[in-house]
């Protein structure tokens, strides 16, 4: 349905249109969550701002592309694409970021900003600048009819996948010992060291987890967004908007804000195509001016 037509269509068509946007919005929200959860964890625990987070999204997607090309299987790609990204992430953390822990946000922002240039040109060099496609297996293509509404199977898969990941993440943080250590570290890294938590290893692990989530996000985003060297920035800015709106360091905030931003962006594009790109900027401006610390933000010293 043409965007403008939404406002004039009859009831049933409008319902269907809204339902479609709803599904798309939540699906986009899932992608944003996979990105912003990692960003928030890394910031919350390590007080590190990772501007290169979008690069890992991109690296995951292209790794999946390669794996699928070699093995012919989407599922294998999904299963394994996080590995190269996490490997690069661990090297980046140990060799570069670790040296900057004392130096404050500015230097980390700058360092990771520099890495975005390196990663994007590497991808361009290896894969070229054209938009690539990540093929879907038959089980995920096509549509399903649900309650009279036609929904693409893959979007449903994405939503379910996102829900599962969110649940696993929550279980990990709330119920496992390592998760408790992460939460303790988020609260107070200094004291955490004092009670015997191996903070450097924990940092490396959380950074790996964060960029791993981003890489998985890139993989599942592939079939919808397409793969191209600029996809890192395309997802990074909305992801940062989510983190800022949700509150830096808050996982709950990331979850709520991802859905919120995903829906606003999708419905915004549907009803105001002229201002599509900038609805979420506007949203962030409004949130920051009324509640500077974000929805669930904590005021860090």
């Amino acid at each position, binding site marked *: 349905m043409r965007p403008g037509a939404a406002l004039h269509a009859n009831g049933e068509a409008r319902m269907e249109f809204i339902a479609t946007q709803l599904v798309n919005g939540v699906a986009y929200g899932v992608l944003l969550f996979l990105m912003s959860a990692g960003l928030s964890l890394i910031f919350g625990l390590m007080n590190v701002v990772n501007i290169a987070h979008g690069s890992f999204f991109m690296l995951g997607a292209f790794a999946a592309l390669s794996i699928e090309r070699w093995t012919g299987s989407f599922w294998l790609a999904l299963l394994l694409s996080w590995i190269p990204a996490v490997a690069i992430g661990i090297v980046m953390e140990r060799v570069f970021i670790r040296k900057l822990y004392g130096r404050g946000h*500015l230097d980390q922002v*700058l360092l990771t900003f520099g*890495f975005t240039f390196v990663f994007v040109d590497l991808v361009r060099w290896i894969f070229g600048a054209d938009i690539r496609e990540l093929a879907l297996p038959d089980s995920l293509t096509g549509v399903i009819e649900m309650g009279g509404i036609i929904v693409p199977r893959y979007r449903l898969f994405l939503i379910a996948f996102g829900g599962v990941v969110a649940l696993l993440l929550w279980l990990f943080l709330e119920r496992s010992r390592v998760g408790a250590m992460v939460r303790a570290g988020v609260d107070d890294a200094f004291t955490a060291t004092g009670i015997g938590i191996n903070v450097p290893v924990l940092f490396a692990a959380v950074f790996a987890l964060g960029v791993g989530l981003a890489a998985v996000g890139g993989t599942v985003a592939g079939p919808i967004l397409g793969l191209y060297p600029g996809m890192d920035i395309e997802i990074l800015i909305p992801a940062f*908007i989510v983190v800022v709106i949700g509150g830096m360091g808050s996982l709950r905030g990331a979850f709520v804000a991802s859905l919120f931003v995903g829906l606003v962006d999708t419905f915004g594009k549907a009803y105001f195509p002229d201002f599509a790109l900038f609805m979420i900027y506007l949203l962030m401006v409004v949130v*920051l*001016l009324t509640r500077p610390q974000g929805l669930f933000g904590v005021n860090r010293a």
Partner: protein
Amino acid sequence: MSAGARRAAGWVLLIAALALVPLSGTYVTGLAAEVLVFAIFAMSLDLLIGYTGLLSFGHAAFFGVSAYTVVILGLQFGLSGWIGVAAGILVSAVVAAAIGFFSIRVSGIPFLMLTMAFAQLLMAISIKWRSVTGGTDGLSGFQRPTLFGYSLDNRALQFYVVATGFLLVLWFLRRLIASPLGSIFIGIRENEQRMRAAGYPVQRFKLVSFTLAGALAGVGGGLYALQNAFVSSDILHWSLSGDAIIMVILGGTGTIVGPAIGAGMFLLLKNVVSSHTEYWLLWVGIIFILCVMFLPQGVWGWLRARRFGGRTP
């Protein structure tokens, strides 16, 4: 040689070097003019980053708004480029004050994102408002003004005008940093909480710094318009803001001359590397990373520390 004499000698050398540039042909002159325009842009950004401690990702907004003002006033109202530049500086100052007023309510990453958001919103307006701004195609056909009867279409004259602007901005920044107002900006960068505890209305000064920086970026934008006689919405893209940040860091944040040197390095790198490979971003990234890791004070900061053992701007 006393410090005063050394400084005077520095100015003389600089002016002499700039005066001789047009002798090296139109390509070098054009490149040098581009470097100087971006040097002004980078130096204005350093007032925020290096001296007040505010990392803004939307500085291109003020550069672009000024350039648009010059071109639009010229095309729509037939106003001379000189009037355009003056108006451009004023407009960029006003826009900076407006954006700054809202942005300084937050700090850190939210500030970074907010300044970027405002700049992106401006870019959206410039893309959509095709009738006035020409959208992504931009506005061409701007007539450069004349100076003492000579048209600014002459590359050498263009360069001298830009160089004069650069020298004026350099002089102004030097005086500013050494002044009470400058010391307040530096104090805010060093320890904002202590400044408050001492009685300074910090928010007000952040706004002053933001506005001044925007106005100076407007000087650069106006000169850009005079030089290129063309403007499009690309000038408002956040990647231009990112480029400026790279220039500031490469050259040396917290120094006055550093960003100018950084602008030279960046543009030189871009021109040289891109003629050999299309992957020049990779090299910029690598050099930038090395700079942040091992030369955080920038090239000029490092040179200055070695040769003068400390503080000279």
